[in-house]
């Protein structure tokens, strides 16, 4: 797909979603970035700020299969992956695909489900396939999970373990809207839900094509060095107990490519890496004891600060370096 068309479509998607979510352009752009980078998105925030709305709007803007899973404590793995049921007429077991068999899967309040159920989803996220009764079923392509979770302490929540948080390419938080956006929201929601009138902008085929375009963006050795340098720095930072994994580096570069494409560029800049570092890295890191940890298991603000400091301290590579 030519970059011009890519830009056109992406702009259209963003503006479409903006009709639903007011004043959250940054969050929308990151969501789109993740979608185009074939990653999974974790939206974390307090209830009622539009997490699900963003997920649904993103899903609606693409004319593709969308499913939604409301995670509850009693949700079973089979409720996600699907089950084999005995077909009386055929006299054999027949696989009934679960909601995970969709291009975009919205997982609402993912931390309410039991760890067992969570891992069923998370494994399918990574492997992009599901195995039921010894048979393997390939998931849809493209396949993106947009999960939401509530950081506030609640009865019956199970915080995602770090190994599973690592599966998400990016974590964003919505934040409260500014007063003007909130007033605007009151006005638009008075008549009907804007989500109902939202028309898809692209189909699954076009989405695949856009993903391919983003994937083809060139990441120079200097940019790769830079991403690795940042990841390395998180591993040796005294404030962190767990640094970024190699998967994190991979996803950082992949997301940066999508961001570059959304910016109309054919190559990645260190600025792309900088812009995405907090979003892509901070939810994977575990602070050492000195950093205050909130009860919910995250200390996002503090971690964001650490990542931001690391980015500010890491030299930007500029070609091969010589002494002089």
């Amino acid at each position: 797909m030519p970059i011009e068309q890519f830009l056109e479509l992406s702009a259209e998607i963003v503006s479409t979603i903006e009709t639903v979510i007011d004043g959250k352009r940054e969050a929308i752009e990151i969501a789109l970035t993740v979608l185009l980078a074939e990653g999974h998105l974790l939206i974390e925030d307090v209830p009622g700020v539009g997490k699900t709305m963003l997920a649904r709007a993103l899903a609606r803007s693409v004319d593709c299969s969308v499913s939604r899973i409301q995670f509850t404590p009693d949700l079973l793995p089979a409720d996600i992956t699907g089950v084999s049921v005995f077909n009386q007429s055929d006299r054999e077991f027949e696989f009934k695909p679960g909601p995970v068999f969709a291009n975009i899967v919205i997982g609402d309040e993912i931390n309410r489900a039991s760890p067992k159920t969570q891992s069923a989803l998370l494994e399918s996220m990574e492997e992009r396939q599901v195995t039921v009764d010894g048979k393997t079923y390939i998931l849809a392509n493209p396949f993106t999970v947009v999960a939401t979770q509530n950081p506030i302490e609640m009865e019956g929540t199970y915080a995602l373990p770090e190994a599973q948080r690592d599966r998400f390419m990016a974590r964003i938080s919505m934040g409260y809207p500014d007063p003007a956006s909130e007033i605007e929201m009151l006005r638009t929601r008075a008549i009907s839900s804007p989500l109902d009138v939202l028309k898809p902008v692209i189909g699954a085929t076009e989405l695949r094509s856009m993903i391919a375009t983003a994937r083809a963006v060139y990441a120079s050795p200097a940019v790769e060095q830079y991403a690795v340098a940042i990841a390395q720095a998180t591993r040796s930072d005294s404030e962190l107990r767990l640094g970024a994994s190699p998967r994190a580096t991979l996803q950082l570069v992949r997301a940066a490519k999508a961001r570059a494409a959304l910016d109309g560029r054919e190559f990645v800049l260190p600025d792309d890496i900088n812009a995405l570092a907090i979003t892509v890295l901070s939810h994977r890191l575990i602070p050492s004891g000195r950093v205050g940890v909130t009860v919910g298991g995250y200390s996002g603000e503090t971690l964001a600060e650490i990542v931001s400091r690391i980015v500010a301290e890491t030299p930007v590579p500029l070609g091969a370096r010589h002494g002089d």
Partner: protein
Amino acid sequence: MTTVTARRTVPLGGSDIRMSALLLLALAVAISGLHTVLEDITWWFGAFGVMFVVFTAAIVARYFLRRRWLGSIAAVLAALLVLTLFFATNTAILGFIPTGTTFVHFGNLLAAANDSIERQSLPAFATTGIQFLICFAVGGIAVVMDAVAIWLRAPALAGIPLLVVVVVPSFVLASLTDGFTFELTAIAYLLIVLSRGRRIQPAVAISAGVIAVLGALVVPAVLPPVAAGGSTGSGVGVLAETINPIIDLGADLRQSDATAALSYTTSSSTGEYLRLTTLDTFQGKQWEPATPKLKPGNSVKALGDPPGLTAGIKVGNVSTSIQVAEATGSWLPIPYPSQSISGLTGKWFWEDGNLSVRSTTTSMQGERYSVKSLDVQPTIQQLEAAGSSASSPLAKVPAGLDPIVAATAKQVVGSAKTNFDKAVALQTWFRGGTFTYSTRTPARAGYDGSGLDVIVPFLQAKSGYCVHFATTMAVMARTLGIPSRIAVGFLPGKLTHQGNDNTAVYEVSSSNLHSWPELYFKSVGWVRFEPTPSKGFEPNFPSAPGQGTTILPTAGSTGAATPVPTATPVTAPKLPNQGDTKPRSALQTSTTLPASSYGALGVLAVLLLIATPAVIRIVIRRRRVDRIREGIDPAGWAWQELRETARDLGVDARESSTPAELSRQLAAHLALAPGRTAKATEALARLQELVVDEVYGVPAYRYNGEDMADALRIVLTGLRRATSLGNRIVATVVPPTLVDRVLGRATARA
């Protein structure tokens, strides 16, 4: 990022040859400024030869080897070879390939140069040592200039070695700075800077120019001039004056405190007149030493036969052991005529004609040697019988001599028939009582000196010192057709000890400096006379066998000073202190530089020290720009240079900033002087684009090193313009990035 093949090879451009030619011109002109401190100009040709070979070798090596740095290596080797060829060919393989001995020899030459500089007055005679020193320094400077201008591509910096050359004379004496040479050098330097065309950095040129002006004007100005020695003002002492030892003899004689010049032990019964050299020709109106070219074969182991001495003349042998104490100079004090000298440490050779012994490399100071000489004892009859040599060039009366001198001579000799009688008559006239010895009168009456113009005033005043007596008698002898010359040396001195074996020990001090006439008689040779009253003693000639008496051809109230080898040694009268002059004898240990000159050297050193960081920073920048142009990681170097210059100028440019971030920062900085930085802002955007394309762009992008370097230059200029003067000074004098580098701090400042 594109893979860039490093283009380190450099095609030989006409520009490099032109640059070398300009460097050669500038150095040749600069070195000629030394003419103010050195006699003659032969040394210049040697120096030019060395620099020519060095620059040529560098060009040729670069042409064939295609590496700039190899040119500099070749320049060093060429300097070594040419120095070997010029100065140590005997020690070298094939005459120019140096061996270990060569370097030992070089060391000796440098030591000799040091000695020569220490012992000579100005203008100094360019001894072999000094010539080597000049060639050595010129070779080194040529190598440095070539490396800086062509290898490092910073021709403006070639001004620093040039400056060193130009200011050398001003270290010696402020008034010695030759403004004309300095201007020529400055013009040559400007040509060097301008020849780089667009590569000129005005700041470099200006700062180099400022340093040059400071060096040439301020430093000499703060230098107190070297105290001029003697009344003639040009030299520091007769013995140190290698060109004409008679010039400052008066000053040396007038000095208040006599110093021990030398001592000797001799078998002679009378003590020896120790001669340094003779002055036998007129140069204009001045007696000049002959200083014939020294022949390597003229070893002091066997000196030549005394000119004119024939077999019929009775001679005795005299052995003298001489130890020189404080006296310095390049002529050796020896009796006349000496036959052989042993025990010398320096390289001494005898001169044809006058048998003086001279060295071009060392001074007599500290020498201890034994001389075998002849005691020529012609009889009076033999002398009277000696024929005339009026046609000898040494009998030539100098042109422009007042006729009254000849008339006086004729009147004095009266009816004397033979040359010898005439000579004795003159001597007697001088010593007879009409003349008085004084070192003060000539200085007071304005005829202090040895030229022709002092003769008439001296004859009128009838008062003077040895120079006047010797000069006048020699000239008068010539008017009578007797060849004559003036000897310069020491009186026999003061007898201090008499040994049992008929030897006597004499001590000679600076007040024994003396000059006397020598007259030539056929078949006898040169005969010493002593016209100076109360000084020394007259020569004693026996009568022919059978006559039975010794004739002392003197008369007069002072009486004949018969040889007095025992109780009353000949000493100089106590000389009055000359308050109006500052006599300074070469017999005192001389120093090359007054202490204040070291202070000036310190000032220059401080200036250079202050300039050093700026120079290093410029060299670093220049090398980076070269790499950018040559396509060696152009973007990396361009951005690093941009970032570091920005940091030097006080912008908080961090290594962790992306090109876009730094660009925004710098654009904000440029906006501080919006009127003058429009071009720079454009160039910054262009540079950022080029760098980003080069480093992060799809490999299909092609770098353009020239564009990048040009844009960088414009941006750097703009950044400086937008910076306050204070920050610019800091950036020049103590560039923060350089400080970080020196302190080992990572330039990667977070």
